C-alpha cells in the first residue's frame, strides 16, 4: 500500500491510515525522505491517529524518519497518538519516540508553523512559497 504525501506549500502532511508491514514502513520512509529532499520541505506533520498499535519497529521507523528529516532541514511533528498507543510506548521505553508530539493535526500544524517562522531561512526576501497560515 502506498501512502499519499499531500503538500501544503513547503509543508508535507502524512497520515498513516493502517498498520504497515515492515517493508511498507521502510518504503514509506524512503518515499517521504525523497519528497522532502525534492521540494526542500520546511516541515512534516505525521498523523498516526488511525494506528491502534505501534510496535517497537514502527516506533523506531517513525523516530528515524524524524531524525533524517531534520538532517534534511525539515521540522517534524508527530500528532494524534492514541492513549493506548502512548501507554504501550511508555511501557516499552519512552526513548522510543523522541519526536515532538501534539494532540491533533491542527495543533501540529500550528506548532510547526511557529517553529518554521522562527527559523533564519524562513524570512528570505525572495521566498515566494506561501505557507498555509
Amino acid at each position, binding site marked *: 500500500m502506498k501512502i499519499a504525501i499531500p503538500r501544503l506549500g513547503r509543508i508535507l502532511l502524512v497520515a498513516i491510515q493502517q498498520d504497515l508491514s515492515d517493508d511498507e514502513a521502510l518504503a514509506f520512509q*524512503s518515499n517521504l*525522505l525523497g519528497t522532502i*529532499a525534492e521540494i526542500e520541505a520546511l516541515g512534516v506533520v505525521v498523523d498516526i491517529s488511525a494506528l491502534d498499535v505501534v510496535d517497537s519497529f514502527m516506533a523506531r521507523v517513525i523516530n528515524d524518519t524524524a531524525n*533524517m528529516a531534520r*538532517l*534534511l532541514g525539515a521540522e517534524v511533528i508527530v500528532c494524534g497518538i492514541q492513549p493506548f498507543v502512548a501507554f504501550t510506548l511508555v511501557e516499552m521505553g519512552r526513548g522510543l519516540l523522541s519526536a515532538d508530539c501534539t494532540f491533533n493535526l491542527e495543533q501540529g500544524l500550528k506548532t510547526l508553523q511557529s517553529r518554521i517562522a522562527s*527559523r*533564519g531561512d524562513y524570512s528570505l*526576501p525572495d521566498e515566494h512559497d506561501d505557507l498555509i497560515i
Partner: protein
Amino acid sequence: MPMHHLAALDRLLSEQRTVLHEKWVAEILTSWSSLLPNTFNVGEMRQHTAHLLEEIAKIFAAYPESGLWEFGETHPLVRAMSEFSASRAISGFTPTETAQYVMCLKSVLTLALIHELMSSPVEMKVNLAAVEDVIGRLTLVTFSAFVETRERVILQQSASLVELSTPVIRLWDHVLLLPLVGVIDTARARKFTENLLEAITRYEASVTVIDVTGVPVFDISVARHLMKTVDAAQLLGTRVVMTGLNPEGALTLTKLGISLPNMITRATLRSGVAEALSLINRRIVPVASSRA
C-alpha cells in the same frame, strides 16, 4: 662460414618480410576489431610494426646457439615495446589487447616456420623455440611496462585527489563556509579539518556553514570524518550549520545513531546561509533600487 642455426628464420624474415608483416598487421586488426577505430591509427601501427620486425630480425640473426641471451632495458627493441605499451595503457587499452600486439606475431612466425620446415623437424624445433623465447620475453616487457604505467597513473591520481583543495571561505564577519567537494578520505578529512579549525580561531567565527552538496558518496567513513570535523568545530565554540545532505546521507547518519544536538541542518546552502546570518542577527533585505 658455418650456417647460422636459425637460418630458416633469417631467410623468412629477409625474403618474406613484407608478407609476414602484412599477416601480422592483419592479425592485430582482427584481434582489435572490437576497439573503436579512432583509438589507434592504422598507418602509424604499420610503420611501428615494420620497425619492430626489423629489430626482431636483428635479434634472431644474433641469437646465440645456447639459447641464453640477455637483453637489458636499454635494448632498442625493449625500449620501443615499453614506450608502445605505456602509450596503450594511457589511451585505455586493456592489458590483453596490448599484449596481443606482440602475441599475434608469434602465431604468424610459427605458421610460417611449420610450413617452411615441414621436412626437417629438428631444425623446426630449434627455430620454434627461439620464436617462443623472444616473443615470450617481449610479451613480458609489454606487460610490465603496461602495469608500471597504470600504477604511475593511479599514484598521480590519488596524489591529485589529496591535493583537491578545500578552501575555507569567509562568508561574512564571523561566518565561515566550508564547501566540501569530491571524495572524502582520511587524508583529505584531516587536511580540511585542520584548515577549518585554524580559520575558526583566526577569524573568531561564531558560525560555520559546512556544505556537502558536492560529496557524491556519503558512506559510514565519510560520516564519521564529518562528525569529527563538526565536533571539533563546536569545541572551539562555533555553531555549525550543515547543508546539502541528501536522503542517503541522512540515512547513513541516522543508522550510525549520530545526533549532534547543537548542529543545525538545512536542505540547501541558501537556507544555510540565511540561518547563519540570522544567528549573528543579520538579514538580507531588498533595497529600493536607485538604478532603474
